[in-house]
C-alpha cells in the first residue's frame, strides 16, 4: 500500500445519498427560482416556457423545497445520532483556529508566510460553505414560509413582511447560487476534482494534502474512537424515542408548512357587474 492506493473512508454511503438529495433539490430550486426572480429576462421566459409555464415551475419549486426540508430533517437526525450516541467530535463546528487558518492561507497565497495551514477533518473552506448552506437554508425556509403561507403569516406579522420575505428570498437565492458556482465549483471541482463525495474515499496522498491533522489522528488511532457496544445500546435507547418525537414534530412542521392554508381560490368568479344587453328603449 502506498499513498495513492491506501484510501480512507471519508463519507459513508448515507452521507453521500444525503449530498445527492441536497444537490438535486438545490439545483432544482435554483433553476426554477432564479427565473422567477428575473422573470423579465428572455432566458427566464424560455426556461419557464420549457418547463410548462409559471404555475408548473412553482409546483416544481415547491416540490424541491419539500425535498430539501426533508433532507434537512434527515441531516439533523443523523447529526443528533453522531453527537449523542457516538459522541463523535463535532468537527464541523467553527473554531477560532479556522479564522487563523483562513488568514494564514491567504497570507501564504500572496506570499507573506511560507507554509500553508495544516487542517483537520474539515478545512476552513468546507466549514464556511457548510455554515453558509445552513444559514441559507434557514433564511430560505423562513422567507419561503412567509410567501407560501401569507395569510397565516399576516395573522401574526405585519403585511410588509411578505414582500420583505420575497426580497430576502430572492437576494439570498442569488447569493447562494453564485456562491455555489464560485466557491464550491472552485474548491472541489476546479482546484482539484475531489471525488470523495461520490466514491466516499480519499487516498492517503489526498488526506496528507488536505486533512493532515485528521490523517495524523487516524494514524494515531484517536480519530473515531467509538464507544463500546453496551454504551451505544444504552444511548440508543434514549436517542431513538427522542429522535422519533423530534421526527414527528419536524415532519409535522413540514406538513404545516405545506398545508397550513389555502392561500387563494383557484378560480375567481368573473365580475358580473351588470346586464350586458340592457337597451335604453325597450325593444318591441
Amino acid at each position, binding site marked *: 500500500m502506498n499513498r495513492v492506493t491506501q484510501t480512507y473512508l471519508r463519507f459513508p454511503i448515507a452521507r453521500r445519498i444525503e449530498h445527492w438529495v441536497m444537490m438535486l433539490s438545490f439545483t432544482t430550486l435554483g433553476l426554477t427560482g432564479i427565473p*422567477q426572480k428575473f*422573470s*423579465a429576462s428572455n432566458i427566464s*421566459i424560455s426556461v419557464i*416556457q420549457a418547463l410548462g*409555464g*409559471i*404555475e408548473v415551475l412553482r409546483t416544481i419549486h415547491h416540490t424541491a423545497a419539500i425535498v430539501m426540508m426533508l433532507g434537512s430533517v434527515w441531516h439533523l437526525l443523523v447529526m443528533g445520532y453522531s453527537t449523542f450516541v457516538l459522541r463523535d467530535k463535532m468537527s464541523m463546528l467553527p473554531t477560532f483556529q479556522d479564522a487563523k487558518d483562513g488568514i494564514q*492561507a*491567504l497570507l*501564504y*497565497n*500572496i*506570499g507573506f508566510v511560507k*507554509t*500553508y495551514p495544516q487542517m483537520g477533518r474539515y478545512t476552513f473552506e468546507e466549514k464556511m460553505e457548510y455554515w453558509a448552506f445552513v444559514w441559507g437554508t434557514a433564511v430560505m425556509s423562513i422567507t419561503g414560509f412567509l*410567501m407560501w403561507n*401569507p*395569510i397565516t403569516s*399576516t*395573522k401574526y*406579522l*405585519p*403585511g*410588509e*413582511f*411578505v*414582500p*420583505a420575505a*420575497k*426580497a*430576502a428570498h430572492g*437576494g439570498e437565492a*442569488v*447569493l447562494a447560487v*453564485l*456562491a455555489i458556482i*464560485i466557491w464550491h465549483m472552485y474548491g472541489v471541482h476546479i*482546484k482539484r476534482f475531489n471525488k470523495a463525495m461520490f466514491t466516499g474515499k480519499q487516498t492517503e496522498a489526498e488526506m496528507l*494534502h488536505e486533512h493532515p491533522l485528521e490523517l495524523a489522528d487516524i494514524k494515531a488511532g484517536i480519530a473515531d474512537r467509538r464507544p463500546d457496544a453496551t454504551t451505544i445500546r444504552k444511548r440508543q435507547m434514549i436517542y431513538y424515542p427522542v429522535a422519533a418525537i423530534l421526527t414527528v414534530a419536524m415532519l409535522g412542521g413540514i406538513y404545516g408548512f405545506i398545508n397550513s*392554508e*389555502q*392561500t*387563494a*381560490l383557484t*378560480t*375567481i*368568479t*368573473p*365580475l358580473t*357587474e*351588470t*346586464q350586458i*344587453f*340592457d*337597451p*335604453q*328603449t325597450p*325593444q*318591441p
Partner: protein
Amino acid sequence: MRQRIQTRPPQIWTVVLLLGLGLLIFALAFFASPAQAAHSYQEDQPSNDFCLACHQEEGIDKKLGSESLPVTINPTQFGFSVHAEEGINCVDCHTDISDYPHPDVKVKNTRDFTLTFLETCKDCHEEQYSKAHDSVHQIAFDAGNKNAAVCMDCHNPHTQKRLTGKTSGELTSSARVEIPETCAQCHSGIYDQYKTSVHGNALTEENNTDVPTCIDCHGVHNIQDPTTVTFRNSTPFLCATCHTDATIMDKYGISTNVLNSYVADFHGTTVKLFEEQFPGQPTNKPVCTDCHGVHNIAKVNNEQTGVALKENLLIKCQRCHPDATANFSAAWMSHYEPSPEHYPIVYYVNLFYKFFIPAVLGGMIFFIITDIYRRIVNRMKGAKHA
C-alpha cells in the same frame, strides 16, 4: 258643369322659379367633388330635394306588420350629417327607390327593415364593414340575435355627423364625448356605471377627452368579447397604454410606474407570463380590474370603494383570499417602489443584499484569485502546493 281640360298658361314667376331651381341643381352637381359627382350624377336619379319634398313632413310613418316605421327625415338634421356634407344622395343607399310610388316593402317589422340595409354601408366603408364582421356583435348576430348591433345602430345614416378631423383623420373631441352615449343605447346598465366612474365622470361632466371612452378599451368596429381569458390576461397592458404615458398622467399627478410595480409583484409576474406564454389559459391572479373595478373604476382615495383605503383593499383581497385578515392587504405594496418612507423593511432588505452579495462573492473571488496565483507561482518554481 264642364270640366276644365286646359290649364292656364304658366305665369312668369313660376317659370323663373323652375329655371332657378334647375340651375341650382345643375350647379350643385357641377361643383360637388368629382368622385361624388360621378357617383351621383345620373340623369334618372331623383334628387334629395325630390325625396325630402315628401319625407320632411313630420309624423309620417310606414306600417310594417303591427309596427310603424317613422319615415320623416328632418332636412336640417340631415343637412348637418356627413352624408349630406359629402353630397350623398338618398337613392345611393335606398337603391330600390327611383320614383314614387315606392316599391312595396315586404318585411314585417322595423328591425327587419333596418337589416335589409346590412350590406349597404360596405360600398363606401369597406374597411369598417369588414372589421365589424370580426366583432362580438357580428358573432352574436350570426348566432341569431337580431338585436346585435349593425352599422346603422351606432351610425344613424341620416344624422351621423363627421367623426374624424377632415385633415387629421383623428377622432374629434366632440365625437369622443358622444361615444358612450352611442353604446348606451344597448348597454345602458354599463353606461350608468361608467358615468359614475373616474373616467366616465370626467368625460360626461367635464368633456375631458384624456379619459378612455368605450372604444379605447373595447376597440371600434372589431370589438372583441371582453369576457374571454385572453382579454383578461391582456388587461394590464391595455390599461398601461394610458397609465404609463407621462404626457397624460403628469397632468393628474398619477404614477406611470403602475405597470412596472404590478409586474414586479407576484400577481403581475404571473399574469405577464400567462399573457406572453399561454394567453388563452386562465389564471387566478388578479388583473387591474379585479381591484380597481371595470366600468365603475373609482379614484383610489374614494371613501366608499377606493383601494388606497386599507379596509376597501382588504375586501378586494378577500375575493380570492377569503381567509385574509387585516394585515394581509399590506402584503401588496400598492404600486409603491420600496423606499425608506414606503415599505422600509423591503427597502432595507434589498439594500442589505445589494452590499452583502458583492461583499461575500467579492471575498470569495479574491481568495480564489490568490489561490490561483499561488498555484501558478509554485508550479513555476516546481514546488508543490501545500
